[in-house]
């Protein structure tokens, strides 16, 4: 091989590798990325059962029910719509009724129940999952503040 051919071979190999990497990334984006929804969106957009999504909103007050030990069901609401969620495992420390939450998982086939495998709660007094805060704000829901009756 001449020097020029060698160089071409190296460059060709490099370009081939990069192309493969780009294809891989594009494939991964089509497979392994979860879109974010609030319950109100789900009425408009139909999400196929089994598609991984992130569901964000507030935990509806009074909706948390513990099943047989480790399974928990609760409702996630954005005040426009409500989705009920089941989760098996340990809820995060900061999971509370009336607070922001993000559940990751998929809808079970033929059922309106969202099966979550990951639940994230807001991480301190001032932290609200950004996605949730933005969406809820856009829909005019005040966060954290309870109606001042007095």
């Amino acid at each position: 091989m001449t020097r020029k051919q060698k160089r071409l071979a190296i460059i060709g190999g490099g370009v081939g590798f990069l192309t493969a990497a780009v294809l891989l990334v594009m494939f991964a984006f089509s497979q392994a990325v979860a879109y974010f929804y609030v319950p109100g969106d789900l009425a408009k957009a139909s999400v196929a059962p089994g598609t991984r999504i992130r569901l964000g909103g507030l935990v509806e007050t009074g909706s948390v029910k513990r099943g047989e030990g480790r399974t928990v069901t609760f409702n996630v609401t954005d005040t426009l719509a409500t989705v009920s969620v089941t989760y098996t495992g340990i809820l995060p420390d900061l999971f509370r009724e009336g607070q922001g939450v993000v559940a990751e998982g998929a809808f079970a086939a033929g059922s309106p129940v969202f099966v979550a495998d990951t639940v994230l709660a807001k991480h301190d007094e001032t932290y609200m999952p950004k996605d949730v805060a933005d969406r809820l704000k856009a829909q005019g829901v005040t966060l954290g503040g309870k109606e001042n009756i007095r």
Partner: protein
Amino acid sequence: MLFWILVAILTAAVAAVLVLPLMRAAVPLPSPHSHDIEVYRDQLDELARDREAGLIGGEEAELARAEIARRLLAASAADATAGQSAPKRLLSSRHAQAFIFLCLPAIGVGLYLMTGSPGVPAQPLAARLASPGDDINILIANAENRLALNPGDGAGWDLLAPIYMRSGRVDDAVDAYDRAIRLMGPTPARLGGYAEALVVQSGGLVTAEAQSALEKALALDSDDPRSEFYLALGLRQEGKRAEALAAFRKLAGKSPADATWMPFVNRHIAELGGPPPDAAGAAPGNPTSKDIAAADEMGAGDRQAMIRGMVESLSSRLKEDPANFEGWTRLIRSYVVLDQRDKAEEALREGLKAFPATGDEGKQLLALGRELGIDASGEEK
């Protein structure tokens, strides 16, 4: 002043260090290739060492040696043609010095004045605790520290609770009232204050816990307007409109027209559909919902003034109307907890004027003084 002197010294010192290199005599700049030559020579030495140690094969070493030697030759040739550049000392030196002397103070002082707070002293906590003066935050902190060491001091909690409430530290207020009640026993004032703090804590809702405290308070003193107010509010929140209206009317009937809570009561009555009743007799109250609503709206600075004002207003009220035994005990305790012992002693003396030491109440005041370690016989300063 000392601060600005130090600033000047610091700036001058930095300027001097920076200008120093510019004062030295001009030195010729060696050709950049002379450094390369040095590095290549080192590489050759290193290669020779590796070969001796047997770390590198003969042929490989020879190839590497040839390559480094080629670079060395090239660098030497470039060095010879470049030669030494003549020492340069252009006008730039004087310009540079001017730049430094101008730049440092201009940027330094300019930006500092924009962002800094000259003249504000450092305030280490230990020093502030040692001599609190008028520092209301430290007075509270002092009281807190004392209570942290001696959490069984119910009177301290009793005093701190309303102060917390007014500084907007509702959670602390709930805790303080709770402790005061447990340590000192329930009184209408404590129970009412506790309930009120709970209400504010839950964002205005009269919770079951608050309700039970309010009922206890009324059991002790059926005329406590605050407790009646919140119980009525609770009834309204439960949707028992008729009962709430009756309760508000009853409260309004008992209260003087100029009582601070009357506007709220009247508003509730109006909202519940009843006509505003006539005003009647009065009873002195603790901080009312209006005060707290006002405290909520205030900024932090205003709150501090309010706490200070609260003690002062109690003191002046007592001057006008000294026949208020509970007022005197509160005032004395306030001063002790705020660590103003001389004022506490003065208050004790004043209180004894209203309630002579021979009487029952006077004896109680003296006993309180002993308990708190205050001497009533002290000379006025």
